[in-house]
């Protein structure tokens, strides 16, 4: 994009809160059930029923509010947002209009170069999710599954403080990281527990006010958000360069074609006729509840990053990898607690552990690896009791079988031979059988030594301690 323009982006994120039951009734929120098996008169909107607020959902929002540095409403009310659509059987959504539970917060994002930027959060409020619609291709019907109806949803709206698609991506990664640290949502985009809509407009650099904004929907991954915004930035700049006006509209991201497409619907001004929800009495956010929530907060990613670099003397990049997920950071600390070489532990986690996570498509919990076992294994390699290559095999077996690494080493007979007595005969034999290399080495070709070490390794099926074998050879040929 030409640098004539400045991009202005705001994001609206919906997060499903990880409660067992819905926000206003006791139906399950589990994903993937058969259609309409997790519904009751309340979430079906049958006449005469009353919603009752799930205490946990309320507490979760307060936790997020604290983590984002938001102000919290003292008295909370809910409002009805009225609209007619079959995913919402009551014909209104219980939401929050003019008094969101939390407001005026921020998300601090860290750029590649380590610089930080604050993206302001306008508001975060609690509402109920709607149901799911399936459309019958070719037939004039839609099918409605109301299992999702009433799932607690936290809507987090940013100020238009984001200036590049890359920043938008970082904002989302950071927000997700914060929410996952709080353990209030699994933030699984595939299952729809985190959803994002983006607003984007362009203005000439230095110009006051905003250009006409375009809302982008159908963003199913963080990558889609970045790509769609990058496309839209170019599209709008092109139109402006040609002297055309940007139409304020909603566009859909087409992931296959990598373009945004106008929804081409008549954008009738929405009139939701909000009014206070009369079926719910007001809620007071008492100071003791806020304190309880504050006390239950884990150490958040930024604080943890600072502590990690101080306490473990690790570089910035390493720290960012370790704190990227709470579970990984916890795991690292547990291993480092058993084996006091944090840098070595970090390298194992960054390398082998993450490779296994990727290969198995699982998170660190899914590996079922006990931190104590990994510590034992790393110690065996570090003590040169087993070789680095054997260490990798043992880890693999450890993850596969859940057995103790020391037992695996014994069973596979992988103990490195670091006993001179045991190597003596083999070293002698290698010297006797490789006259040429011995002569080469003695005449100053030091490279010949690694060949001889290799021969010792071969003769011991890789079990000899290569450092010791080298030393012994040098001494004997010295």
């Amino acid at each position, binding site marked *: 994009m030409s640098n004539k323009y400045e991009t202005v982006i705001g994001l609206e994120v919906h997060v499903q809160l990880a409660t067992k039951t819905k926000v206003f009734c006791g139906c399950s929120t589990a994903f993937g059930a058969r259609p309409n098996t997790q519904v009751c008169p309340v979430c079906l909107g049958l006449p005469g029923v009353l919603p009752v607020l799930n205490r946990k959902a309320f507490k979760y929002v307060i936790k997020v509010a604290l983590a984002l540095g938001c102000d919290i409403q003292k008295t909370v009310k809910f409002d009805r947002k009225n609209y007619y659509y079959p995913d919402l059987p009551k014909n209104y959504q219980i939401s929050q209009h003019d008094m969101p539970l939390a407001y005026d917060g921020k998300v601090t994002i860290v750029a590649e170069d380590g610089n930080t930027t604050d993206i302001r959060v306008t508001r975060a409020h609690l509402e109920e999710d709607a149901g799911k619609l399936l459309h019958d291709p070719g037939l004039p019907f839609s*099918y409605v599954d109301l299992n999702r109806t009433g799932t607690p949803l936290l809507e987090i709206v940013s100020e238009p403080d984001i200036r590049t698609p890359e920043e938008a991506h970082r904002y989302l990664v950071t927000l997700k990281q914060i929410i996952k640290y709080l353990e209030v949502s699994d933030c699984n985009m595939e299952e729809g527990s985190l959803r994002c809509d983006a607003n984007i407009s362009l203005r000439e650099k230095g110009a006051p006010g905003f250009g006409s904004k375009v809302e982008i929907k159908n963003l199913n991954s963080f990558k889609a958000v970045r790509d769609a915004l990058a496309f839209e930035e170019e599209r709008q700049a092109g139109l402006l360069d040609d002297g055309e006006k940007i139409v304020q509209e909603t566009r859909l991201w087409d992931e296959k074609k990598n373009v945004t497409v106008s929804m081409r619907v008549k954008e009738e001004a929405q009139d939701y006729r909000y009014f206070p929800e009369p079926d719910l009495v007001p809620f007071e956010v008492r100071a003791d509840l806020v304190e309880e929530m504050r006390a239950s907060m884990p150490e958040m990613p930024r604080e943890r990053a600072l502590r990690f670099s101080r306490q473990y003397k690790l570089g910035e990049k390493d720290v960012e990898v370790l704190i990227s997920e709470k579970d990984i950071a916890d795991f690292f600390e547990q291993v480092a607690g058993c084996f006091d070489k944090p840098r070595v532990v970090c390298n194992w986690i960054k390398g082998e552990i993450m490779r296994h996570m990727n290969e198995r498509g699982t998170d660190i919990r899914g590996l079922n690896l006990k931190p104590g076992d990994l510590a034992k294994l790393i110690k065996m390699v570090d003590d040169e009791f087993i070789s680095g290559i054997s260490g990798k095999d043992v880890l693999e077996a450890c993850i596969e079988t859940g057995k103790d690494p020391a037992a695996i080493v014994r069973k596979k007979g992988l103990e490195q031979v670091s006993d001179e007595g045991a190597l003596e005969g083999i070293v002698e034999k290698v010297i006797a059988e490789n006259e040429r290399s011995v002569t080469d080495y003695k005449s100053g070709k030091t490279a010949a030594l690694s060949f001889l070490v290799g021969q010792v390794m071969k003769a011991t099926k890789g079990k000899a301690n290569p450092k010791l074998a080298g030393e012994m050879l040098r001494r004997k040929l010295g």
Partner: protein
Amino acid sequence: MENTGRKKVITEDDVRYVARLSRLRLDEKDVTMFRGQLSAILEYIEQLNEVDTEGVPPTSHVLSSMKNVFREDEPGVSLSPEEALSNAPEKKDGFFKVPRIIKEA
């Protein structure tokens, strides 16, 4: 809605607009009738403006003494899919079946 002094008057366009939002089809006779009825209701409600509310904090609920009614995050009883769908005019494979709606792709 026209605001003539303190009196609010519902116009026929207001009636048509509200009807559209509520997905109701009205004929002209209905519009005239509802214009009268809705205006009368508003006029009646207008009487509340005569109360002096100076210094009274706003409330969103009539039960001012009742607050913080929560339920715990414990599973309750859901309906069977047969019960859930029993009022549906049309259903298929456990889904409610409705005329096709296209909002988003």
